[in-house]
């Protein structure tokens, strides 16, 4: 049983991250292989351009919102490590928000602590921020949106949601589950929604589940689509998104729209990456893909997202997690930084999983890491040894998708599905009479 206090965990994590940043700076100066992510240099260059009144898009490969460059302007006059400290601080906020969300749902202290540790001491996640990758900011805001929603603060949730979709397009996949989640049975204007508390009894969880899940979510949506909460959420988030986008379009024109938004919507990369589509794209790069081919590659993503939303939207956090895993797995381009998108939600769903670490959990971890390592080995042979192993690398991508699919199915099977909210008692009474 871990007896560390949350404050101590956060303090140790903070010291560790500061140390990593300093070691990283030393490594960059004295060693051939840099610690800092190449993207960080892109952000910093874009920030200096912005600081001198120029467009950040003069920096080639800067494909983010100008907001990011704005946040990193102090890199030019305080310290070039400012951005890394900012991202690492966001990383710590993710750990804090994990605890806040779980405590609000009455998860026992030890499980909360384990969940915090899974994020804060995951080697993948603590290197992301300290190397200068901006994903921790996105993760922190996503979790803050969850906190706002579970506290019934729709206006604030909508504001941050509009902002984060402008900042990083992928959270757009959460719009439908959030809309479904804002069910009028739970969200009543002026009343804080009632949270379903965590329970270790799967039988009790199913009982709660069956009281509420008496119709499919599609029917719920059609029955009461235009509620106050939903309209408010849509209007505010849409307005924030359009305002930010419009403002930066006014400042930077089509270059901003293309680099920060359209590029991500249409991105295909022929270079090798974890996606099963990379070799298909490379083999067909010299010709335009037909509409049918584009549709066929988009359909799996679309179908999986729709089904996951309709099945799990009421358990919003779990829905976010499975959607993100599937979104990454079926994407046309997969790079390692995308994994952090679901890593930040994973600690929030584990207290509701009846899968034990020994041995099923451990097998899943080893399977996922094994499939990744297998891919990396072929990637190493291609990139660093110059061997033509495109076919083997593509097969490793297929295996990686298979591993992701299998693990996702196992997590779905072992999840104690339970809506985040329960009905208000007066509504329940009305229904049973």
């Amino acid at each position, binding site marked *: 049983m871990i007896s560390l206090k949350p404050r101590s965990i956060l303090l140790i994590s903070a010291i560790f991250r500061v140390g990593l940043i300093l070691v990283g700076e030393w490594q960059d100066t004295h060693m051939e292989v840099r610690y800092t992510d190449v993207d960080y240099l892109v952000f910093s260059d874009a920030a200096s351009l912005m600081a001198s009144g120029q467009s950040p898009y003069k920096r080639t490969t800067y494909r983010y919102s100008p907001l990011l460059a704005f946040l990193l302007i102090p890199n030019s006059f305080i310290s070039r490590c400012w951005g890394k400290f900012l991202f690492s601080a966001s990383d710590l906020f993710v750990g804090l928000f994990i605890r806040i969300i779980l405590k609000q749902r009455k998860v026992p202290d030890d499980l909360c602590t384990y969940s915090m540790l899974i994020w804060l001491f995951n080697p993948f996640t603590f290197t992301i921020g300290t190397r200068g990758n901006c994903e921790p900011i996105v993760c922190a805001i996503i979790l803050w949106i969850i906190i706002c929603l579970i506290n019934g603060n729709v206006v604030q949730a909508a504001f941050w949601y509009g902002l984060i979709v402008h900042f990083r397009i992928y959270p757009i996949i959460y719009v439908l589950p959030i809309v479904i989640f804002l069910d009028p049975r739970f969200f009543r204007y002026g009343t804080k929604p009632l949270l379903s508390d965590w329970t270790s009894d799967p039988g009790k969880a199913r009982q709660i589940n069956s009281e509420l899940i008496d*119709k499919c979510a599609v029917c719920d949506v059609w029955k009461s689509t235009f509620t106050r909460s939903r309209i408010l959420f849509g209007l505010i988030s849409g307005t924030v998104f359009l305002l930010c986008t419009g403002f930066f379009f006014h400042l930077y024109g089509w270059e901003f729209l293309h680099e920060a938004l359209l590029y991500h919507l249409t991105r295909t990369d022929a270079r090798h990456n974890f996606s099963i589509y990379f070799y298909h794209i490379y*083999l067909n790069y*010299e010709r335009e893909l037909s509409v049918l081919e584009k549709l066929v*590659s988009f359909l799996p993503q679309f179908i999986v997202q729709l089904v996951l939303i309709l099945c799990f939207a009421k358990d919003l956090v779990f829905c976010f997690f499975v959607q993100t895993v599937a979104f990454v797995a079926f994407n046309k381009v997969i790079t390692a930084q995308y994994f952090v998108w679901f890593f930040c939600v994973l600690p929030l769903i584990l207290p509701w999983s009846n899968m034990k670490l020994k041995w099923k959990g451990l097998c899943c971890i080893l399977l996922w890491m094994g499939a990744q390592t297998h891919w990396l080995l072929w990637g190493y042979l291609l990139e660093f040894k110059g061997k033509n*192993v495109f076919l083997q690398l593509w097969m490793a991508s297929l295996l990686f998708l298979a591993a992701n699919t299998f693990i996702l*199915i196992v997590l779905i099977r072992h999840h104690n599905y339970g809506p985040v909210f329960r009905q208000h008692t007066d509504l329940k009474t009305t229904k049973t009479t």
Partner: protein
Amino acid sequence: MKSYFENYESLHDSSFEDFMAHQLSSSLCQGIPDNWNVGVRLSVRELSLVGEGSHRHLSSSIRLQIAAASIPKLPAHLCEVIVIQRLPLGVFADPFELQNPHKHKAFRDIAVFGDTNLELPSFQSNRSAVEFHIDAGFNILFMQNNGTEFNLLLPLDARYQPLDESGYSVVEIGEPDMLMRCSVEGKQHKQSCLFMSPPNEKAKSTSATVAWKIPAGMKAHAGFLSVITFVTALLSTLSIVYASMFLSGTKVSKT
């Protein structure tokens, strides 16, 4: 190279050679006595590719020779050797890597010109060139009879190549173009003088080009690969759909 790209959109050997021959020679020292022949000889003693895979280094050993009588006349501390390495379509130099101070502190300046888009495959990209400026002062002052040598190590990355039945594509990298620039006192004011090896006296290096064999996709894979990719995606989709609807806790209860 900056001047070249101000006049031309992309790098072509013929345009560049014309540029070097006519544009630069017209800017050589004005009003300098014709008999002031510094006898500059710049040659590539060795050219090789170091490393394996998609990230290698082009190693160039360059010899600078100057007629002994001319050395005292030269303002050695104001001379630099300029090396321009033109790169073929299949490879590029990453400007980010060239900024690494640990590796390139010996150079006064390094810059990449042309297509610096790192992401495009070779059949969608244009050529690029890397320009080095090396301080030659120390080397000139202490030059031996057989000249002085500079060693360059240029990090290169391979682009994705056009498809090839053999599974590999061969890219050839030639010798760099080289000249020396000195800032000398002219009749009226200081000016930049450029010195190049006379074409007919250019020493032959041991290897004029180096060949880089880069893996390429094979068209023969295209047919079955697309089918298997989409079938795999479909099977994964169906599995997840089935699990979500029938294996999760979201069963519809018939009460």
